[in-house]
């Protein structure tokens, strides 16, 4: 071998071999060094330097929600809370303090030489003293905070349970994630403490000034265990209101010449919504605080932030949310850069909160109009409280002045039993999300469809035959063609009187001639089966609906129409659609919106809750239906006759034993154009008989043959144009005129009180003493 000749000595060759091995090791080490310093150098530099950056983030204010007059409906208010360290809550604080005490007592040098068992003994000796200290702290907290020790314990146990369950969920997620990414087994997973386990947790909210002072002192006596935290609470100043209502214009049976002050709870709470203090994973995914490239989105979500969870708070979360401020300090140079916090932007609603509160008082059971009374002729037992909803829109702009749903969320939370909550469903916003059959309210729209499609001439009279189908004399009847009314019929009527008298046959005829497709098209034009997107629907970036309190209602689909054809009852179904029965449903909001569209002559300006929508303009459905002016005038005239002429179904109520009937709308200085509606309701069930958590068809037969009570129309100053659209529904209220009518009357007075309409709201009921009519006065709906 050459090496033998080159290096004759074997020993020297072996030394050379060792030298080569050393050289190879150096190359290896050098290679890794180059990788770390040169190739990855900048990353490591950045990682090391990031520890020199001290960043602190400053809290921000959430934007306010205001009504149309600038009254603040929701705002952040600064408050102080008392928080207890999690280690104190779990008791591990005692152990760690005992550890430090033991170590100090024994001496650091000796401590390091002790074995683990001896260390444990020393710690265990000292722990009871620290546990006692925790108990002293709790006693002090209870005495300053004015709560019982049991209450405090309950709060503490709740916190422990919630943190443990959220830790378990987080660890499970992390375990799954790591098993997937790194292929480790389940036992290898190491659970790291989650943030909540190192934070302090709030045990007392909204301390008074005196309490804040005392607790600050206490936190110095018990250092490291409690702290007073400045925080922000979302407050809703208008949530509860005291509304004075004059009872002098109520129906005679409950009329009194006095002002009743009604306390309403949860004003507009369905609309305003709420915030939650818990940030969920999807919030942090949607808008993370720490971005992938290492920078920070100051508007991003961190645990502990409030997030809108329902209503305007949720739909306008991105608008209302503010940006945190930041103080960026370099530890080595000491330089500071400060970016101030940006408060969230405000959202302006079209609501008039005083009107809203007033209408809620009108709908309250205390006031009495939504409770079953004698004069309502309702099969539901007397005194039963009923659910209801009302909407008031401004015709010119489509702005919603009030939108009330009873019961409110707050009333629901205050209900004493779950059964009551299940029966009344307070979480539903009935005004925009409650779907009901329109009943006779639909008639003006049927007229509009028929005239615009050319199937009806406004000069043509139609004879009321009592029944529409020869073969089915008891179905598709006119409401007065009943034994109780002596099987009457209307004479040949023009459109306006047909509306006023609410003749079913007239509108069966129109619908029959229209056919389902054309009628459906026009109902669609008027906004049925559409979500109007008033500001209570939250859509994701892809347009998918994430949360909504708006229902579109329903019109028959092509499949359903096809099924009619197969069953052979197309004619019947499309005919009864003319009077708002059959497979049509809508919401009170859509009702008011449709009537407003009619009043505008077909110009579409769909209802909205938001002024200057920060989300930008809504895509419009279309601009103008271009309704025939004569049609509009006729329909409007028909509605006026309905409530202002004594043959109109909305004019008065006959009460047994009274000589003079009760005029429904008894305000002066205004003109009203409105329609009553008595719509067939599903059987009324209020008890979860089979205990399955729902009240539905499986819970017994319920009370059948009931109706929802509708009253929808327009109101304006006397001799003026319609300015406002009103829609009222009382669930299971029976006759439209008898139950919803008086409510609409009170709403008109409320509009007068708030200055929207002229006239004296406290004027006693006018229009009394009109002569009793011969004909029956209320429409009993269809068959």
């Amino acid at each position, binding site marked *: 071998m050459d090496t033998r000749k080159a290096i004759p000595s074997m*020993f020297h060759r072996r030394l050379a*071999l060792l030298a080569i091995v050393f050289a190879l090791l150096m190359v290896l080490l050098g290679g890794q060094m180059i990788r770390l*310093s040169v190739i990855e150098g900048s990353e490591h530099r950045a990682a090391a330097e990031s520890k020199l950056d001290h960043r602190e983030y400053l809290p921000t204010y959430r934007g306010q929600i205001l009504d149309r007059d600038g009254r603040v409906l929701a705002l952040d208010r600064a408050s102080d809370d008392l928080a207890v360290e999690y280690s104190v809550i779990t008791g591990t604080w005692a152990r760690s303090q005992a550890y430090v005490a033991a170590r100090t007592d024994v001496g650091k040098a000796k401590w390091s*030489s002790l074995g683990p068992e001896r260390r444990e003994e020393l710690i265990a000796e000292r722990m009871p003293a620290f546990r006692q200290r925790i108990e002293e702290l709790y006693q002090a907290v209870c005495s300053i905070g004015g709560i019982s020790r049991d209450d405090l314990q309950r709060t503490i146990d709740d916190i422990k349970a919630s943190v443990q369950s959220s830790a378990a969920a987080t660890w499970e997620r992390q375990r799954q994630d790591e098993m997937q990414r790194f292929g480790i087994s389940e036992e290898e997973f190491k659970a790291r403490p989650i943030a909540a386990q190192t934070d302090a947790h709030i045990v007392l909210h909204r301390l008074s000034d005196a309490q804040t002072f005392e607790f600050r002192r206490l936190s110095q006596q018990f250092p490291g265990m409690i702290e007073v935290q400045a925080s922000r609470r979302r407050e809703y100043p208008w949530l509860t209101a005291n509304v004075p209502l004059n009872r002098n214009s109520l129906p005679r049976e409950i009329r009194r010449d006095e002002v009743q002050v009604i306390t309403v709870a949860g004003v507009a709470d369905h609309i305003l919504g709420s915030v939650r203090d818990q940030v969920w994973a999807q919030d942090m995914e949607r808008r993370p605080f720490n971005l992938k490239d290492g920078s920070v989105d100051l508007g991003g979500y961190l645990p502990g932030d409030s997030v809108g969870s329902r209503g305007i708070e949720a739909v306008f979360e991105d608008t209302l949310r503010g940006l945190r401020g930041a103080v960026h300090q370099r530890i080595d140079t000491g330089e500071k850069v400060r970016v101030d916090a940006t408060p969230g932007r405000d959202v302006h609603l079209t609501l008039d909160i005083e009107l809203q509160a007033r209408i809620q008082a009108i709908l309250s059971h205390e006031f009495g109009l939504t409770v079953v009374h004698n004069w309502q002729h309702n099969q539901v037992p007397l005194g039963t409280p009923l659910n209801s909803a009302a909407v008031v829109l401004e015709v010119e702009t489509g702005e919603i002045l009030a939108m009330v749903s009873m019961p409110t969320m707050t009333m629901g939370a205050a209900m004493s039993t779950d059964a009551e909550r299940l029966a009344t469903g307070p979480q539903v916003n009935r005004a925009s999300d409650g779907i009901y059959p329109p009943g006779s309210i639909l008639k003006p729209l049927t007229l509009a469809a028929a005239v615009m499609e050319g199937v009806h001439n406004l000069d043509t009279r139609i004879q009321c035959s009592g029944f529409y189908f020869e073969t089915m004399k008891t179905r598709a009847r006119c409401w007065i063609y009943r034994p109780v009314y002596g099987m009457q019929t209307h004479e040949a009527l023009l459109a306006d009187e047909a509306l006023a008298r609410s003749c079913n046959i007239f509108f069966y005829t129109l619908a029959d001639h229209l056919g389902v497709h054309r009628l459906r098209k026009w109902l669609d034009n008027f906004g049925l089966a559409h979500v109007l997107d008033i500001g209570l629907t939250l859509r994701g970036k892809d347009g998918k609906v994430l949360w909504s309190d708006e229902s579109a209602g329903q019109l028959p689909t092509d499949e359903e129409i096809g099924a009619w054809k197969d069953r052979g009852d197309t004619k019947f179904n499309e005919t009864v659609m003319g009077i708002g029965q059959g497979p049509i449903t809508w919401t009170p909001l859509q009702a008011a919106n449709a009537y407003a569209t009619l009043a505008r002559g077909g110009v579409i300006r769909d209802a909205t809750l938001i002024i200057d929508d920060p989300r930008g303009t809504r895509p419009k459905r279309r601009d103008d239906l271009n309704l025939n002016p004569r049609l509009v005038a006729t329909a409007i005239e028909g509605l006026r006759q309905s409530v202002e002429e004594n043959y109109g179904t909305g004019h008065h109520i006959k009460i047994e034993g009274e000589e003079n009937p009760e005029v429904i709308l008894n305000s002066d200085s205004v003109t009203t154009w409105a329609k009553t509606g008595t719509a067939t309701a599903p059987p009324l069930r209020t008890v979860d008989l089979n205990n399955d958590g729902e009240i539905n068809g499986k819970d017994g037969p319920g009370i059948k043959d009931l109706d929802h009570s509708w009253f929808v129309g327009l109101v304006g100053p006397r001799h003026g144009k319609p300015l406002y659209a009103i829609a009222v529904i009382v669930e299971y209220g029976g006759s439209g005129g008898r139950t919803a009518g008086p409510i609409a009357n009170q709403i008109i007075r409320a509009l007068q009180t708030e200055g929207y309409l002229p006239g004296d709201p406290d004027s006693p009921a006018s229009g009394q003493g009109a002569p009793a009519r011969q004909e029956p006065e209320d429409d009993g709906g269809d068959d």
Partner: protein
Amino acid sequence: MTQLAAHPSARPRTRYTASGLRTDARPLHQSLVNWANTGWLCVFSGVGLSMVGILAIGTTQPGFALRQIAHLCVALVAATAIALPHYRWLERAIIPLTLAALGLLIFVLIPFVPEVIVRPRNGARRWINLGLTDFQPSELAKIAYIMGVASYLRVKQNYRTFVGVLRPLALSLIPMVLVLVEPNLGMTLLFLPMLFAMLIAAGAKMRHILIILVIGLSIAPLSYPLLLDHQRDRIDAILAQMRGDPRHQMDIGYQGSRAMTLVGAGGWFGVGASKSASLIRHNDLPEEHNDMVFAVICCRWGLFGAIITWGMFSVFAFGGLLTAGLCKDPFGRLVAVGIVAALFAQMCINTGMTMGLLPITGLPLPFVSYGGSSMVATWLMVGLLFNIALRRSKYLARQSFEFDSMPQES
């Protein structure tokens, strides 16, 4: 060929006994002590490294840096002391030295020794309290081991067979086990490079060595369950770090990940004294003055600093190997190789663990890390090396460790 003196010196003639011939048959024109020797390379590189160490320690712990200067002075004195007598006296004292080392190793392990004398740290019994400082018997054992193996290989010639290679391996297990039980896994593992380097230098057949290495590396993973918890943790941590798994960065992998970050943060030329002090402090590097001092060097002086450090270690190794090559005495040759191997291997293990190539061990960086015991032990080895380099061979010895059949020139 040795030349007989033309004119015998004025010294009285001695009897021509074998030992007498050995002591007298020396080249007269050469002195016994060679002041211009390759040992200076080791000394200068050692001093250079110690300086680097003092500066690096001073980055964050100026107090310790001053103390390290004191340790250096003590160590230099010790090195000088061990360099004074010819190393053959140490060779002759090998048996008592080995027994003393073993005795001390056993002594620290005895459970009922009072804690004044053997002070445990974190449950490890490694140190004997000498009042001013702590003394680690395992450091002494390292030196005794090198000399013991050198002596063994010089005497026995049968390590050319496979079984013969296994014998010293088996004998090494005694000190290894004693050190392992302290517990001190890092130091235990250091025995192997020393042994193998000396075996290779002594002429054991390469294929035997390779077979043993292959077998050893194959069965090493089986010992995993036998390890202590913290030792297993360190292996888990390094494996996780290599996979890029960030799970253990905050617990058992903390030291390793911090060290790697700081090493990389240095870049080409480092970030300078004050900046590196801030970075080290705020990145919370543990043990920055002893086990992790290489990270400080890389942070402060960058790749440049690392190369200088490694360069000086390479100069040291070169000097040591050169000493071994120039030395004609078999004992001296092997001791030199053993010392170079010990220090170089320790340097590789320490820098490797700092850079994330190896699991964290408790081995400090020779010359650089803070620690009196380590400094003194290291400089003792340098002193021994210098001792070897200093001496010229007195007698014509058969060229040692030459097993090839080429005729030798003297």
